[in-house]
């Protein structure tokens, strides 16, 4: 437990420096578990971990959380679940019983959050998920009463993308022919299963359709075939490596479409950094209101504190989940998790992503579904009740 003592020493030191004469109270132990290794480590390093670092740093700089009139510092204990659900479960258990954590933060991704749901439920900690997209929110929150969802339903994410295309077609900007591809893995299959019927229902003609296995290196045959079908729009229900790969191939093949959509990771800052001006007009899953001063301020603080830019989708939601927890604890003035959970259910919260108010299924019904790279930022263009959506633009080449 050397690490803990070290943390205690540093946090106590910070407390005395910042709060001056403040007498260091018992610190609040915050448990965090998410991938640091394994397939999801890359995503967690962008979306999950930097937010925890920022939150803990800022709260401690302020002198800690105010719990019932007492200022208490945060002490964080981090575990790597190796992207393995069994490890996530074990780490949550360990945090609760061995480390006596006062708060445990929700893990990362749909799969790991759902694996941890029974144990959060049993231990009575609120689980505010910010990176889980599922269609089973009702069933899940009925069984796990303390589970909350910020990121929304996967069906909306796919259907809204199709709706953006429909709107562009109605406006006479694009034609009727769509090429659709998907990565043959869990979320990619799920999005395609919603997207395809939605395209058909909207009257689009699917001129090319295929899927490719996860980890496919050579995507050029797919792009060549897609180009040969002469589509007006290209949609890919893709994952991080292939989102980049497909974009690259589209540039090489000079795929001349007026709407280009790739799914997961299009909202990553690294996407914009890699493709620069070529990214202009690319649409993808997620989005934020980049014009909102709260988000701009948050992005600047995150970069200053951790050197990492937030992605334009789930990162802000992750930070919002921490703001919600903070407000619930400070307002109720307790670390009694049942009371904190009830407060979260009953109240609305002002966050960097705007107001968040959970419905009776513990679901945040207002979220971003589609974004687009415009002027070097990934701006939200479609939402289910958020303010600040911008007009979608037509893609004009790859220069």
């Amino acid at each position: 437990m050397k690490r803990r003592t070290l943390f205690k020493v540093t946090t106590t030191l910070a407390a005395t420096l910042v709060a001056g004469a403040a007498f260091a109270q018992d610190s609040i132990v915050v448990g965090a578990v998410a991938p640091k290794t394994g397939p999801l480590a890359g995503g967690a390093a962008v979306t999950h971990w930097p937010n925890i670092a920022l939150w803990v740093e800022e709260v401690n700089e302020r002198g800690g959380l105010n719990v019932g009139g007492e200022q208490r510092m945060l002490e964080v204990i981090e575990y790597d679940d190796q992207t393995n659900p069994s490890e996530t479960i074990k780490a949550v258990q360990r945090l609760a019983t061995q480390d006596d954590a006062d708060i445990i933060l929700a893990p990362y991704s749909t799969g790991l959050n759902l694996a941890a749901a029974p144990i959060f439920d049993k231990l009575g900690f609120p689980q505010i998920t910010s990176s889980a997209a599922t269609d089973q929110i009702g069933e899940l929150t009925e069984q796990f009463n303390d589970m909350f969802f910020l990121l929304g339903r996967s069906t909306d994410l796919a259907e809204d993308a199709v709706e953006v295309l429909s709107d562009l077609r109605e406006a006479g900007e694009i034609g009727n022919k769509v090429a659709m591809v998907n990565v043959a893995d869990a979320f990619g299959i799920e999005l395609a299963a919603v997207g395809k019927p939605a395209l058909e229902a909207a009257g689009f003609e699917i001129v090319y359709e295929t899927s490719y296995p996860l980890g496919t290196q050579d995507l050029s045959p797919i792009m060549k075939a897609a180009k040969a079908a002469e589509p007006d729009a290209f949609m890919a229900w893709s994952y991080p490596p292939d989102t980049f790969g497909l974009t690259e191939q589209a540039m090489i093949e000079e795929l001349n479409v007026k709407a280009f959509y790739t799914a997961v990771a299009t909202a990553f800052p690294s996407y914009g950094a890699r493709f620069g001006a070529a990214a202009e007009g690319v649409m993808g899953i997620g989005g934020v209101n980049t014009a909102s001063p709260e988000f701009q301020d948050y992005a600047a603080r995150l970069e200053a504190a951790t050197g990492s830019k937030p992605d334009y989708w789930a990162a802000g939601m992750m930070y919002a989940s921490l703001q919600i927890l903070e407000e619930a604890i400070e307002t109720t003035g307790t670390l009694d998790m049942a009371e904190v959970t009830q407060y979260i259910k009953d109240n609305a919260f002002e966050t960097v992503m705007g107001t968040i108010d959970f419905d009776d299924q513990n679901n945040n019904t207002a979220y971003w579904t589609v974004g687009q790279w415009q002027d070097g930022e990934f701006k939200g263009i479609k939402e289910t009740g958020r303010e600040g959506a911008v007009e979608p633009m037509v893609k004009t080449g790859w220069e």
Partner: protein
Amino acid sequence: MKRDEWKTLGWATALLAVAALLPLTGDGYLISLGVSIAMYTVLATSWALFSGPTHYISLATAAFFGIGTYVMGSGIEVLPYWVLLPIAGLIGGVLAALVGLATLRLSGVYFVIFTLGLAEMTRQGVTWYQNQTGHKGTYVLTDLTDNDIYWQLLGLAALVYLVGWGIGRSRLGFALRIIGDDEDVARHVGINTALSKVALFVVSGAVAAIVGAIIAPRYVYIEPSTAFTPMLSFQVVIMALLGGTGRLWGPLVGVIPFTLLWEAISSSFPNQTTLLLGLSFLAIVYLLPGGFVGLYDRLKGRAAKRSAMA
């Protein structure tokens, strides 16, 4: 049965009874460790039933485990839980039989490579099917707690030990030991080597599939990447080898220290877990080539020699 065997059976039953009391402690952390230990004990012991005597290293555990989780995941909406466990075992067994008939004529490294590929192939097969049918996520929502899962795994462990003990005493077990020593000799004395090997491979495949089915409710949401993780196959082999495959209890004495070591490393050094595990593997292979069973036999041999000299 001989008197000694009665004694062993008595001890085994007593140990099992003690292990079954663990959930009564009410300590969630201990129970989650217990689930890990029970799961790997079943997997490593059934793995050693086949690989121990035949010396065929199988890396197919993840394939059967994954099949089991998907049987549970896709069947839980339509069939009762208890029916799905034997179905998982049956499907795992049939797959093992097919694979065994096709590959157990291969020897050594060819077999290892094939079994490693099998997990990936099954995973791609499942994914292909989901992609064709427009699948929308596999959820296993049940009321089963860690306690229930632990007890089920313990029951399965008892069953595996009984089967292993039975095989050890049977003609099949004798035949397998001969195959392990020299397959040509075995064939010449009239042993149907292929059939004997397939029979044991089926047992280990079926057991791994049932374990997958029992674990599925714990994951709640089943993804190919977690159900078919190749790490599982390697962990099972390493744990079994750490314990030693020469005796039925060998894998157990590998699983327990390994799980505790893993736990100690991941809780104390969350940022260097993989590195330290790699170093531990090296140390184990270098310092304990025959596993704990080999060490035990060596010490026993030395003690016997000493008493003989005295």
